[in-house]
């Protein structure tokens, strides 16, 4: 009897739960899975949000649906989009967030990033990028060679060998760099060409605002200083008046050693970069089968790279940003709370000792 009562209770409990539970509505086909979002600047407190939703081919002929709303609060924007799309908007498949250059300069990227960072349904591996001109145009544009803009953007912003100059900033990377006290963040900078999109350069951020772009090559060195082991291919032109040499080096392996003198009063950082790469293309007068010529070329390259790194560091100092995070090498030995002021002080007063050692491994299989 007891058992009977227990089971009866159980069954009625399950029954009531089963009946009162509202129908599971989070099934895939009831949702509009947002894949990319673009933000454009309107005014200080309004933002133009474009949402791109890839559609299954069964549903309609269009491959992506785009909705654009002007809103001051992001969540409001999604509600609005939901009402337009007819289905509930879900962010669980979000892959890319684009900001227009104008927004990145005038608005605050951190606010938007934190909004998505807070949302548990959004992954932390979504990629952020800044777009020249209007971000909306990228999502809405029609590119004959690109069947699905969302997949394309996703692939474009995935780390790859030949584009590894780009930081491929994910949401976590951005938040991490923005919130720590020692370094500044950066993002890839996309440019729309005739019928394609490319990562043109890299933008630097400070306090959620875009500052300046740096070239691919410089960005590649930033990545090298950050400790990336495999660098993007490098084009070098050694121009010494009469003999001009052009080189293309690939498969560059990078080892970097950074040391600070632990002193805040007269900060010094010694940077030793060891690079190894294979020379793929060479235009110049040297006969590379000769050992001394080869050694000289190596030396020239090392010197050239060293100078470029120095130039880069000088440029960064002028911009008062530090995407590499040199201050970390001082924070490590600092007792007490590190803060932005100390970082600024380091950036302003630090002295860099750069030495670059470039090893050419081979010159291809032809002599």
């Amino acid at each position, binding site marked *: 009897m007891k058992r009977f009562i227990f089971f009866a209770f159980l069954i009625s409990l399950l029954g009531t739960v089963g009946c009162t539970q509202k129908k599971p509505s989070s099934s895939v*086909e009831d949702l509009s*899975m947002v894949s990319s979002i673009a933000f454009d600047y309107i005014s200080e407190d309004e933002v133009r949000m474009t949402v791109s939703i*890839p559609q299954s081919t*069964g549903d309609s002929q269009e491959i992506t649906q785009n909705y654009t709303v002007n809103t001051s609060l992001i969540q409001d924007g999604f509600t609005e989009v939901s009402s337009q799309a007819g289905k509930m908007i879900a962010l*669980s498949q979000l892959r890319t967030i684009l900001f227009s250059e104008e927004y990145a300069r005038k608005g605050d990227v951190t606010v938007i990033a934190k909004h998505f960072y807070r949302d548990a349904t959004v992954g932390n591996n979504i990629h952020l990028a800044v777009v020249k001109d209007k971000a909306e145009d990228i999502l809405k544009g029609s590119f004959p060679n690109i069947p699905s803009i969302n997949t394309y953007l*996703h692939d474009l912003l995935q780390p790859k060998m030949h584009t590894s100059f780009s930081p491929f900033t994910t949401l976590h990377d951005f938040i991490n760099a923005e919130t720590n006290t020692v370094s500044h963040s950066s993002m890839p900078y996309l440019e729309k060409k005739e019928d394609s999109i490319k990562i043109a350069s890299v933008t630097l951020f400070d306090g959620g605002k875009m500052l300046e772009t740096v070239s691919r090559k410089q960005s590649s060195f930033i990545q090298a200083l950050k400790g990336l082991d495999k660098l993007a291919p490098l084009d070098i032109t050694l121009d010494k008046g009469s003999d001009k040499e052009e080189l293309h080096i690939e498969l560059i392996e990078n080892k970097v050693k950074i040391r600070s003198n632990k002193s805040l009063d007269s900060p010094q950082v010694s940077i030793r970069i060891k690079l190894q790469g294979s020379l793929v293309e060479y235009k110049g007068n040297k006969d590379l089968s000769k050992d001394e010529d080869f050694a000289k070329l190596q030396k020239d390259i090392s010197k050239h790279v060293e100078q470029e790194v120095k130039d880069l560091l000088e440029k960064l100092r002028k911009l008062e940003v530090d995407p590499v995070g040199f201050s970390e090498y001082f924070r490590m030995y600092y007792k007490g709370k590190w803060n932005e002021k100390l970082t600024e002080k380091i950036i302003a007063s630090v002295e860099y000792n750069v030495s670059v050692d470039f090893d050419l491994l081979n010159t291809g299989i032809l002599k």
Partner: protein
Amino acid sequence: MSFSESDKNGFSNETSIQNDNVLLDAIKNKLNEVEDAVFKNIQTADELVTIIYLSSLIEKLTLHRTVIAPLLTNKEDLLKSAEVPEKVNISSILSSITEGNTIVYFQSKNLFSTVNTYSPPTSSIANSDTESTVSGPRDAFTESLQTNLSLVKRRIQNTRLKNRDYIIGTETNTKVSVLYIEKIVNDNNLTKVINKIEAIDYRGFNDITILAQLMEDHQFSPFPQYQVTERPDMVTSSLIDGRVVIMMNNSIGAVICPSSFLGFFMSPEDYYNRWTTATLLRCIRFFGFFLTIMLTPFYISALSHHPEMLPYEVLKSLYESRSRVPFPPVIEVLFMELVIEVLREAGSRMPTKIGQTIGIVGGIVIGTAAVEAGLVSNILIVLVAISALLSFLPPSYKMSNASRFVRYIFILSAGFFGLYGQMIAFAWLIYHLVNLTSLGTPFMSPVIPRKWTDLLDSIVLAPTSFLKHKKGVASAESKKVLPENREE
């Protein structure tokens, strides 16, 4: 049991010997309406002999060779070979008759003797249907206990291999034989088995699986707790592990007690294969079991609760294939799983040739048509097919049936609560398995090893020379080891 009544009727030993014709009449009376009971009076050279037997259990030729011919020519030989029961009463004679013996009654000497003439038509030793292997011995048990015992005793030629017989089944009086190897078997296990068999109160046994179920420790569990095999080599290896094996007349299976969960995923063929192959196959079988109960539920949870889990490319193809399906994923999966279940059942009930057709009809026509009609997505068809195939991986048919049932629990819980529900169900499964016992031995050994050496013969099979130790599952007596094996 049923004979005890006749004892009450007043046929005690003394009376029956004094008054034999009364006894004969009583037997006749008891065998009234048993149409195949034969009473035959044979006039030999010097006296009248009555033979009684059941013609359905005895071949005419055997009868002639062993009883009638000697009776007519050389009576002394027959008397030497025949057994003369110590106590003659109606119940012993009746049971002797039902066992297939022939009763020879010498009227002048007033002597009952029994001759073993049991020779029913038997099926010959054939290959195993449900546990077939590519290499290794092919013979499998038949429905005859005698044959089966001979198959085992042929393999273990050792007097320490004991078999105790019991009669169970209040109506059928089925004979079971409990086999074990003395000094290796754990006496606790043996006593438990014997106690369980003696305590059984059940009317009839058609197959040994009924006995196995009656002996289970946890009868509400969906899992079989004793392995039933029809392969003599499997029985042999279990016996030398120190386990107890029960065989039953009229049943082609032998029950191995205790069994372990992992044992259901081991085929005797593993030991005939190279250890690398065996390890690979065991991994596939074992993890296949968990995959088969997890695969379609995962489809449900991913689609209806956690679309963020899937990479975009996978989701896209799922999304596309599901775009025409009007049901929620749970209904879709349940529908398809039930269709597979129906196909399987229909296929197994039909005569072989039609059964094959059903497989083709089901697989190709229903599958393709269902996708085209927009009833299910084609990815689901693939998943259901894979999980159906995976469910056939365990060498034991019972375990494969268990996985079929358990899968529905997972499907429903995934439908309600997604991955969380699936993990709750998984926790239930694991807890249940961990606490199942087979004859008091934890069912999950050697996943939780009873002995560290068990790990050499678990999911991973070590090379054969490492497998010298007895398995811990039967907690075999370890004192007496190899050298004594050859006493005789």
